[in-house]
């Protein structure tokens, strides 16, 4: 076996906060050989990104590193910053989560690749340009010559991530650190990027340190897996061992929390569809009006959907498909251009401001981003109580009592009424979001990707809570998500959207088992499965399909 390129011994990172050192990663030990992929898995806050950034001293100034990190037998802890700079980019390259923020928006991608090249090699501009074009070709960005002169905003999300990979690969690094490389991407693009990373790794024989929380991605890529929790290594083993014979209960728990397609508990799916639908959309078209030089944009076209009382409908699609727009229109936050949209029998498109007020009492919405959906300057009790207060249903002590009841309903302590959003974790904030949405016991709940910002284990608990509440309160729900596996757990019916059009709609099992539309089929096929063997099979099928 070849010499490992990365050796980490007793590596710890601490952060200095308010007079004390807090450990973020404790005594990490691992090795990485060329051509291999080591995945570090864990929930947010477990210290996986800290470890990855700590290898090359990319941490904030209040961090302290100790132990040993050897890259090509050079210690990276007690090292001059000039040596460190030489290693960064040349020997160790990073791929970050969000390509839009990791690439500099005022320079073309070609310029940024050339910059990396000329920092490390004695290279003329012409030579660097041709090498950069070669790299852009390698990462399969269409028409490399033209793409060289494009700015990051002119590329799609997937292409941006490819450009970042090209930049990372510019100096043929021995070690590639990929920090959540596909989290910001849609599933179909995620599959392509993972394929690309795998083929490049094989071609260049570099090692990859993969940081992710997505078990499906891990199953697809990793040779070895390291599970982290609260800064500690919980389990370390081969991919096969971790997935099939996990030793530590936390690993088991983590694996169990991953939603799997088609394996959900079979809930009773009978919903009476003879009643009047709670939400009735007929040929709804939504247009974002022209603003300045930006032309008007049709986000949703001829969209029809019914939701009956007590029914959960999952709305699935990739980013930009218009699913959030539908959700916002359904609650009257966006005007519709044509068609009709009825909530509990009242047409929202023709409603006056006053009527809208009463219609909204029948609806509630849970937003995507728990960090931005609660007013940071208001205690959460006030946020939850606001709909009740404004509907003039209760005031003073009575209102406080109601708020506390709602908190209890979403399994939060009653005393949390006076806390502020920043004191809560993401999962807790999202529960507050539900409590607020349910404050007026609505007939219709719109949930706009409520779990996309949450860890898998937190997500599992959140989905359980939502199902329990739905069982109890029997509200109808439009659940918007990009994750088919999540929708599979919840929904009675599934609607699939692409580019503002409703592609397919039907019973859950019918969609998941026998989808008719090719787009739906592609979407289902691209969902990563937390099982290495299954992933390999699909990968081969995908590659065969390509050829």
């Amino acid at each position: 076996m070849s010499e490992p390129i990365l050796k980490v011994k007793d590596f710890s990172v601490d952060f200095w906060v308010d007079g004390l050192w807090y450990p973020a990663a404790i005594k990490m030990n691992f090795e990485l050989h060329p051509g291999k992929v080591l995945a570090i898995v864990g929930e947010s806050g477990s210290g996986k990104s800290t470890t990855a950034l700590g290898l090359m001293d990319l941490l904030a100034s209040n961090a302290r590193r100790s132990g040993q990190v050897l890259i090509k037998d050079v210690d990276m802890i007690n090292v001059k910053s000039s040596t460190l700079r030489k290693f960064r980019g040349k020997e160790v390259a990073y791929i970050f989560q969000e390509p839009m923020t990791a690439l500099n928006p005022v320079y073309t991608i070609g310029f940024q690749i050339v910059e990396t090249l000329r920092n490390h090699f004695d290279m003329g501009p012409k030579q660097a340009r041709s090498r950069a074009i070669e790299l852009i070709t390698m990462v399969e960005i269409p028409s490399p010559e033209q793409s060289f002169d494009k700015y990051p905003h002119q590329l799609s999300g997937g292409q941006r991530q490819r450009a970042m990979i090209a930049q990372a690969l510019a100096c043929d690094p021995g070690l590639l650190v990929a920090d959540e490389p596909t989290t910001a991407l849609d599933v179909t693009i995620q599959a392509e990027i993972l394929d690309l990373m795998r083929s490049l790794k094989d071609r260049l024989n570099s090692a990859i340190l993969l940081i992710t929380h997505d078990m499906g991605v891990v199953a697809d890529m990793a040779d070895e897996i390291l599970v982290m929790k609260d800064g500690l290594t919980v389990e370390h083993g081969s991919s096969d061992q971790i997935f099939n014979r996990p030793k530590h209960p936390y690993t088991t728990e983590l694996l169990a929390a991953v939603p799997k397609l088609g394996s959900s508990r079979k809930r009773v799916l009978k919903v009476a569809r003879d009643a009047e639908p709670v939400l009735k959309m007929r040929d709804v078209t939504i247009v974002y009006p022209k603003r300045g030089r930006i032309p008007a944009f049709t986000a949703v076209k001829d969209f029809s959907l019914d939701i009956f009382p007590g029914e959960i409908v999952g709305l699935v699609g990739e980013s930009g498909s218009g699913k959030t727009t539908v959700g916002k229109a359904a609650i009257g936050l966006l005007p519709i251009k044509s068609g009709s949209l009825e909530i509990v029998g009242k047409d929202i498109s023709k409603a006056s401001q006053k009527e809208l007020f009463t219609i909204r009492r029948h609806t509630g919405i849970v937003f995507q981003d728990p960090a931005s959906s609660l007013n940071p300057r208001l205690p959460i009790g006030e946020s939850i109580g606001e709909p009740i207060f404004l509907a003039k249903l209760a005031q003073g002590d009575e209102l406080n009592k109601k708020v506390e009841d709602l908190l209890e309903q979403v399994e939060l302590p009653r005393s949390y009424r006076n806390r502020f959003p920043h004191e809560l974790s993401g999962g807790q904030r999202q529960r507050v979001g539900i409590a607020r949405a349910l404050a007026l016991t609505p007939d219709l709940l719109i949930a706009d990707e409520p779990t996309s910002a949450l860890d898998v284990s937190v997500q599992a608990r959140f989905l359980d809570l939502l199902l329990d509440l739905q069982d109890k309160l029997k509200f109808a729900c439009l659940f918007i998500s990009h994750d088919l596996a999540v929708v599979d757990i919840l929904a009675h019916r599934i609607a699939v959207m692409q580019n503002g059009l409703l592609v397919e709609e039907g019973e859950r099992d019918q969609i998941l088992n026998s989808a008719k539309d090719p787009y739906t089929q592609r979407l289902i096929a691209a969902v990563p499965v937390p099982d290495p063997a299954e992933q390999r099979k699909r990968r081969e099928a995908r590659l065969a399909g390509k050829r």
Partner: protein
Amino acid sequence: MKIRRKSKEQALEELTIESGENAIANKEVEGLTQWQIIRRRFFKHKAAVASLIFLTFIIVFVFSAVDANFGPIKTKGWWKWSPDDLPDLRFGDCPNDTIGCPTISIVPKFLGGAGIGLGEHPFGQDDIGRDYFSLVMKGTQRSIQVMFIIGFFAAIIGTVVGAVAGYYRGIVDNVLMRFTDFIITIPAVIVGSVIGAKFGNLGAIILAVYLGLFAWTGLSRLVRGEFLTLREREFVDAARVAGASTRRIIFKHILPNAVGVIIVSVTLLLSGAILLETALSYLGFGVVPPDVSLGLLINQYQDAFTTRPFLFWYPGFFIVSIALSINFIGDGLRDAFDPRQKRKITKKEKQNARAIARNQA
């Protein structure tokens, strides 16, 4: 079954220690309200706290030294002279045969000085013998009053214009911002001198109000920018869904989140205001005699520059120290309101931490 069942308290406890993405970074702010966090950050900024204490001291000192009016309430000063008194002009005991030199002494006797003490006229006397200390105190009172009045009006107008423009966008925004641009293009000194020439004789307070009507432009642009980003946040949508009126959304939901920007820029606006007042008064367009202000004092005695420079020093000292301490306070507030500002760890703190770690081990 008994073992598997967790008590409710246990389950709740687990919830509270749920680790989040910023669990470590949030250690510093655990269990504190937003205002407590801001206060703590502010008090860690040493220059700002020192400036705050210094400014408070100056204000209390100045307003208690000579007679002051707070609207209908009149207070008596503890200083023996008032600006209207006409004591005898001192001759002879001054260096270089000047008249009415300051009697304040800060060099102690054992260092060869006259000992620490105020004397009869600590800041000296003006041409006709008036006590310069009481004049400077009166002038500082005026300047501080003018400064706060300008700040108050500019803050209110700037916030409202910026909030309305940022919230409604579109045509409202366009009209208001073009109007703002129009105001900005007129140089402050010209506006000030026109206003001063027209309303200066109505008294310093009226003048300050009019100046406030022109000082809000920078603030309104900042507030507008803040509103433009905040109105896209999801909690604004959530409030709208909850049935909140536009007024409630602006004042209850968005404005408290923009208050950081407002406080910081109003503070910095204040130091600009005191400088504007002194500049205008110096040019003769601001406060007019018999009233006094710091700028006016400098203007009146500019001929004395070569022979009796102390007539410059004292008003100058108050102008500079007030403007400087307000700027430091603004700096501290900006740091306190900006969560991205991370304090640097000093060497000493690192050593302390190491010592603690050693003791624990």
